[in-house]
């Protein structure tokens, strides 16, 4: 093997940074969309009248039983067909990630609410609070505390998962590195660099989540 060449990485930095910006943008948008849609699914599953809980459960189970890459391919193929004209890879990837992550977020939100002990709700209602008040002041604050770290951890997973846009040729961080690696024939340097950056960001983020969790427990 030839020497490890840092110069290749340095010269490629502006291009890689562009890729990272796309990765971050995709992560943040899919996270917001996913949590919003996931909350809707969770509420539907717990409190909506009859056909809706089954529909939501079916959606969640379907999305959770197929691989993310297949979901990305599905939407890459479906979105232009549904709209009737070609759209870029970004909108279809964003929709795919939002739809996919919503299934996982909704399970976290539902588990958070259902994990609150039954006695809490009964006790709140016994003190004279109405059902909605009991939810608002007793159950949901506890549920939110329980689910926030898990939601953030899932978002770190989403951040890693966005690397899969590689399969539709969208220039995220990893794909940008692949482009440079292929052009300069420097696969070792570029892929090692990508791995280190992802590792540092993810370890830092999960450390932050751990601190948050500790503060909430006390």
């Amino acid at each position, binding site marked *: *093997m030839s020497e490890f060449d840092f110069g290749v990485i340095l010269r490629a930095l502006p291009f890689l940074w562009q890729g990272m910006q796309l990765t971050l943008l995709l992560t943040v948008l899919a996270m917001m969309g996913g949590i919003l849609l996931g909350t809707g699914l969770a509420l539907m599953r*717990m409190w909506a009248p009859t056909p809706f809980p089954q529909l939501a459960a079916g959606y969640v*189970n*379907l999305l959770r*039983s*197929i*691989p*993310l*890459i*297949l979901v990305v*391919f*599905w939407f890459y*193929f*479906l979105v232009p*067909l*549904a709209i*009737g004209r070609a759209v870029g890879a970004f909108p279809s990837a964003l929709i795919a990630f939002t739809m996919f992550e919503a299934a996982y977020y909704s399970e976290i939100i539902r*588990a958070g*609410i*259902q*994990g*609150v*002990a*039954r*006695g809490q*709700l009964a006790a709140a209602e016994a003190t004279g609070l109405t059902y909605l008040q009991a939810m608002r002041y007793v*159950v949901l604050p506890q549920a939110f505390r329980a689910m926030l770290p898990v939601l953030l951890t899932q978002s770190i997973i989403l951040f*890693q*998962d966005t*690397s*899969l846009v*590689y*399969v539709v040729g969208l220039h995220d961080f*990893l794909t940008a590195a*692949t482009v440079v*690696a292929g052009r300069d024939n420097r*696969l*070792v340097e570029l*892929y*090692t660099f*990508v*791995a280190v950056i*992802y*590792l*540092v960001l*993810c*370890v830092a983020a*999960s450390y932050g989540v751990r601190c948050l969790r500790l503060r909430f427990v006390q």
Partner: protein
Amino acid sequence: MNYNWNWGLLFVEPYFGFLVSGLRTTVLIALGAWAIAFVLGSLLGIARTVPIWGVRVVATAYVEIFRGIPLLVQMFLWFFVVPEIVPRDWGRWLKRELPDPEFWTAVVALGFYTACRVAEQVRAGIQSISKGLLNAALATGLTLPRTYLHVLLPLSYRLLIPVLTSEFLTIFKNSSLALTIGAAELTAQSRQIESLTFHGFEAFTAATVLYIAITLSVIFLMRSLETRMRIPGMLGQGADR
């Protein structure tokens, strides 16, 4: 939206053969990777709970590193980088002589990645057992390895059945990443049918149905286990609210 349906397409050669061989490759990658993940993950999970500082640090570092890098990047590292940085002879063997390199690289990458997830589950399982049991076992004169073998592990693995089942499901889904290094597994084959025939609906539906067929039986098994092990007194129990 106008679209020419042709479901019969899936049942004629060569496309039917694509799907069958894709399914076979997916299952083989998943099973091979699970063998690595279960053994290595169990060892790492146990290592994270033993009262020996050095062992714990190594196991923790492994878990942090493999969890912090996206699986796709790990695939590329195993496929493109490892053959370059190992001694020259090994590298040549990996690049030239290893039969079916995409398949085996996928098995190894997925196995080592899933090992860190299994390790976390095993650690949590062991730590969920009360400290009193460990102390009681040690007090009766059992050595530490025997305490693990006869007391902690039998108990924790029973508690772990649902989460390990779910990790086992995940490994089937994650095996689809093998397509990025050129392994012809199920998703890759459906993508190939789509690009050859422009019948994306049929091709992706076939893959979706096959993935569901793989996971459905396991999910039902998991649900019955979950119901039996549910902790009484949680809001999740009745659908009356």
